[in-house]
């Protein structure tokens, strides 16, 4: 089975119950110069991207390019069929009559943008049916928020510092998790 991409084997993480504490904690910990590896939440928390310094996703660019592909595919194929391969007279209209091609061109634009973006999305988010999720704590899909730090390359004192920062920032639990 597919294993999720995971950079570290061992993690220290803190659990929060309220999104306000969780967001505060991110500010406090990053102010100390410690980078957060993963932030887990049961729903999209507003404003978390800026706090964590996550760059805006480029998914929309993918959607735009794929949509344009759809537009040109539809127009190109219809043009070739109606003017070159199979020119047929319908009610005396011109072979190439753009207004009649707009509905299908529009539909194909939307179809390619949406389907393509969905696949880019599951690829970038490392989602796949049957994939085993690498999560530090199962409660984060229910009612808890978690901040996780990879500790494979950290010294004892650095780990102690992270644990200390987590408790100081209001984490209700500070635990460790190791992935096999």
């Amino acid at each position, binding site marked *: 089975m*597919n294993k*999720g991409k995971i950079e570290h084997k061992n993690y220290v993480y803190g659990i929060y119950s309220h*999104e*306000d504490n969780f*967001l505060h904690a991110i500010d406090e910990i990053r102010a100390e110069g410690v980078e957060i590896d*993963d*932030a*887990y*939440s*049961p*729903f*999209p*928390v*507003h404003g*978390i*991207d800026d706090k*964590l310094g*996550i760059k*805006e*996703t480029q*998914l*929309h660019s993918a*959607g735009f390019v794929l949509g344009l592909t759809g537009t040109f595919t539809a127009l190109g194929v*219809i043009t070739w*069929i*109606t003017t070159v*391969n*199979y020119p*047929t007279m319908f009610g005396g209209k011109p072979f190439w*009559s753009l207004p*009649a*091609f707009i*509905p*299908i061109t529009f*539909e*194909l634009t*939307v*179809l390619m*943008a*949406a*389907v393509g973006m*969905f696949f880019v*999305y*599951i690829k*970038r*988010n490392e*989602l*796949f*049916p*049957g*994939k*085993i*999720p*690498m*999560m530090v704590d*199962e409660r*984060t*899909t*229910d*009612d808890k928020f978690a901040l996780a730090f990879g500790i494979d390359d950290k010294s004892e004192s650095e780990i102690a510092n992270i644990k200390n920062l987590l408790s100081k920032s209001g984490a209700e639990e500070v635990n460790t998790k190791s992935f096999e």
Partner: protein
Amino acid sequence: MSHVDSLIREPLILGKDKTYGQITTDIVRNTEGNPPREWWFAFGIALIGLLLYVVAVSWTIFKGIGVWGLQKTVNWAWDITNFVWWVGIGHAGTLISAVLLLFRQKWRTGINRAAEAMTIFAVICAGQFPLIHMGRIWQGFFIFPYANTRGPLWVNFNSPLLWDVFAISTYFTVSCLFWYSGLMPDFATIRDRATSAKRKYIYNILSFGWRGTAKQWSRFESLSLILAGLSTPLVLSVHTIVSFDFATSVIPGWHTTIFPPYFVAGAIFSGFAMVQTLMLIARKVQKLEDYITIAHIESMNKVIVLTGSIVGIAYITELFIAWYSGYLYEQYAFYNRAFGDYYWAYWSMMTCNVLSPQLFWFKKFRRSIFVSFVMSIFVNIGMWFERFVIIVTSLHKDFLVSSWNYFSPTWVDMAIFVGSLGLFFTLFLIFARTFPVIAIAEVKAIFSSISEAAQEKHRKEHNH
């Protein structure tokens, strides 16, 4: 930071001691354990309907569409009526999730999941009708433009019937993707609560291994927003194209430019009515009154009265334009609708779609569960009659008096329609027991701003 919306705003999540954990339990509970007796009872009835559908469709395919009530004059009737009716119903889901997302309407979160499911099942029902009405369903793939060995032979790109093929299949695909991308995090919630290994395994496959990290959520929100932006024109285009099936043919009663907006408004109208019917039952049976509140029902009723009135204006405009055109055949087509052989269908449509929803101008009726339920059924009936009136009354008295005819359905026509309801409810009932009926993550996301619990907490903290 979370902030509470104005305290005088009606909360969208009720329960003063609600917590995130409680939200999960309330919604996921309905997928756990054995279904209650009422569910089995409803499922049994739906399965009988489905069986009827299979029998009637098989008979149609075996004998040919001569088993329907169609004749030379009325050569399109219940098949296309049912198609347009189901497609119309299939419009509310995407409208609720996409258009209301773009307008930042928070009440969307309580009902969008079930409405999208309803959309998908309604489109599945709709898609059957063009196929079975072809007569030779085994050649149904001819509708797609594929490279073939029959010489250069292609479909007609100038035909609205072909546009329909693209519109419906695109709409179905995009609705499924939109729905499924929203479901993954909620499946993960069910997975992480599961106690048995088998259940965990199944829901993990369904969740695509969702983790819920900030980066995943960031892409999730981006995808939802763009899919909403794409679906909004898409949902409008689909019923526009369905209306082209009629509007581009030179038949009095069909050949009108008002059709696209009129059909789109009608689709939203009927779709909301079906959502209302289903939600009023689901909230009661699944004890979801805290999430699908009277405020949600009232908001839907507001959309129903708005779109019902747009539809009403369209009916009256049609009558005016028929008179104003000075075109005898057009005038007769509309006179015949209102006072001809099918006057009963026309006036049922007018009563159910235009007159009765006007009750919703009164707050008391908008907030009454009983009135909402009765009205939603009325609208469903009225919108079926609208399509029947448009299709059959425009055909049954054609240009040659000797071929004028009256359409009566056969048992097969009726069995296919009733059976398609069986198909719809079978799918919906399976959904209601295995999927999270409410978008868990989205409801949690508005919890800290517009729930009764958050307002209560805010009042206590500020104590003014």
